């Protein structure tokens, strides 16, 4: 009897210790608190900002899973984001690579000092990617795009894939770090075509290092 009591006491003590250890762990913040904090932290933001501070369904999912969604969630994201892709009306996916290089170099636009805008928004591709051999000031958040078209033999399929990746990267890579340049209205279809030309034209310096 005494032995059983002793075992019970040890067990209860262990449970209590485990319970208090759990209480030490920090509870994750809830959506309501996060939203409230975000809304109150940007008093100078214009009226359309509060919804943009939250992020849409895909962004909420990617935030929740720290950009590592389950296979099932990834499929849902790819389908949703793929549906957002708008193609050029005449079906021509390649524009002017010279203009594309300018779009890739420019980080202008959408910063709170860029209002009212004095020029078109840039893609700022060099912030994260290597593109031409000549430009040594390139970032490494994304993979190198040097010889992108050449490696893919300038195929039509890869031209379409490149367009889709720029327009909405999540259609191909759910929870990609890359901005949804087309879907979010950062770049126009014409600008995206110019970037596709930069990547996929044989004459482009990307493919002629």
């Amino acid at each position, binding site marked *: 009897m005494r032995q059983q009591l002793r075992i019970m006491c040890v067990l209860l003590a262990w449970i209590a210790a485990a319970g208090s250890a759990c209480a030490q762990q920090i509870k994750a913040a809830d959506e309501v608190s996060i939203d409230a904090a975000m809304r109150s932290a940007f008093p100078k933001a214009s009226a359309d900002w509060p919804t943009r501070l939250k992020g849409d369904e895909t962004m909420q999912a990617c*935030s929740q899973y720290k950009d590592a969604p389950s296979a099932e969630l990834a499929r849902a994201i790819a389908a949703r984001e793929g549906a957002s892709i708008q193609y050029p009306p005449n079906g021509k996916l390649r524009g002017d690579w010279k203009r594309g290089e300018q779009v890739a170099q420019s980080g202008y636009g959408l*910063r*709170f000092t860029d209002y009212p805008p004095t020029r078109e928004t840039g893609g700022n591709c060099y912030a994260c990617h290597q593109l031409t051999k000549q430009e040594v000031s390139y970032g490494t*958040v994304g993979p190198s795009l040097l010889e992108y078209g050449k490696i893919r033999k300038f195929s039509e399929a890869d031209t379409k894939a490149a367009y889709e990746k720029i327009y909405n990267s999540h259609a191909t890579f759910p929870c990609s770090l890359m901005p949804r340049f087309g879907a979010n209205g950062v770049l126009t279809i014409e600008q995206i075509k110019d970037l596709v030309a930069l990547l996929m034209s044989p004459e482009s310096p990307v493919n002629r290092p």
Partner: protein
Amino acid sequence: MKTIRRNVCAAILVFASGLAGAVHAQQSSDAIERELETYRSMMRSDPWSNPGMLDVDRGETLWKTPGGPNNVSLEGCDLGLGPGKVDGAFAALPRYFADADRVMDVEARILWCMEKLQGFERAKLLNRPHPGPGMPVKDLGAIATYVAYRSNGRSFAAAFSHPKEKEMLALGEALFFRRSGPMDFACSTCHGDSGKRIRLQPLPFFSKPDEARKIVGAWPAYRVSTAHVMTMQHRIYDCFWQMRLPEVELGSDVPVALISYLVKQAEGGEISIPGMKR
């Protein structure tokens, strides 16, 4: 036979020169990095070589001199260790303050003291609180630099024991990974991996304590390219600018939460103010 041998030799030469080129590039990069490290250690060995020390000095004067409509000094300001106690206060921040019923970092707390003790108008302090290029850090930032300097040599040791401190830390972690805005950026988009850079600017991986410990203790830092001291609240304000989000208010819960997260990741890391940045 001769043709094959010639082609093979040519191939080996091309391969070797390519390899040598790559090795040379790496050696140049290593040599540059060694020179930079020599420069940095020389700066560290003589703290007065950092122009940010002028703002530490100015901050000390501002702390001790009566000012504001109430004409009182900040020596009555409680930074968490009791009124006027400056040594080690920065190392224990952010923390909960009962009088404000809020968790505050060093800049939010100094803002509070400037308002409540010295009588400065809060709205005026919050309006354009950060310097433009070539302009010196504002008074609040200079005081924060001085206060941080008085924790040099200590390690980050904020307790995060009060329930509101725990909430703030949880909020900071959630915000760090929260993607939003037209570019779908979160802090983690850029600061979520090792060895990455934007253009040529290396990016610390803040969720890795090893890296956080090396970086967080250098802020406030003297920014060479803009010739002024940049405080942590200013650095975060600038991040939001690049992330295509609106102007974040100094001392509001969002930057305080993010600073809490950074300081927690940097726990045990050494404080060495002012740092020196690009």
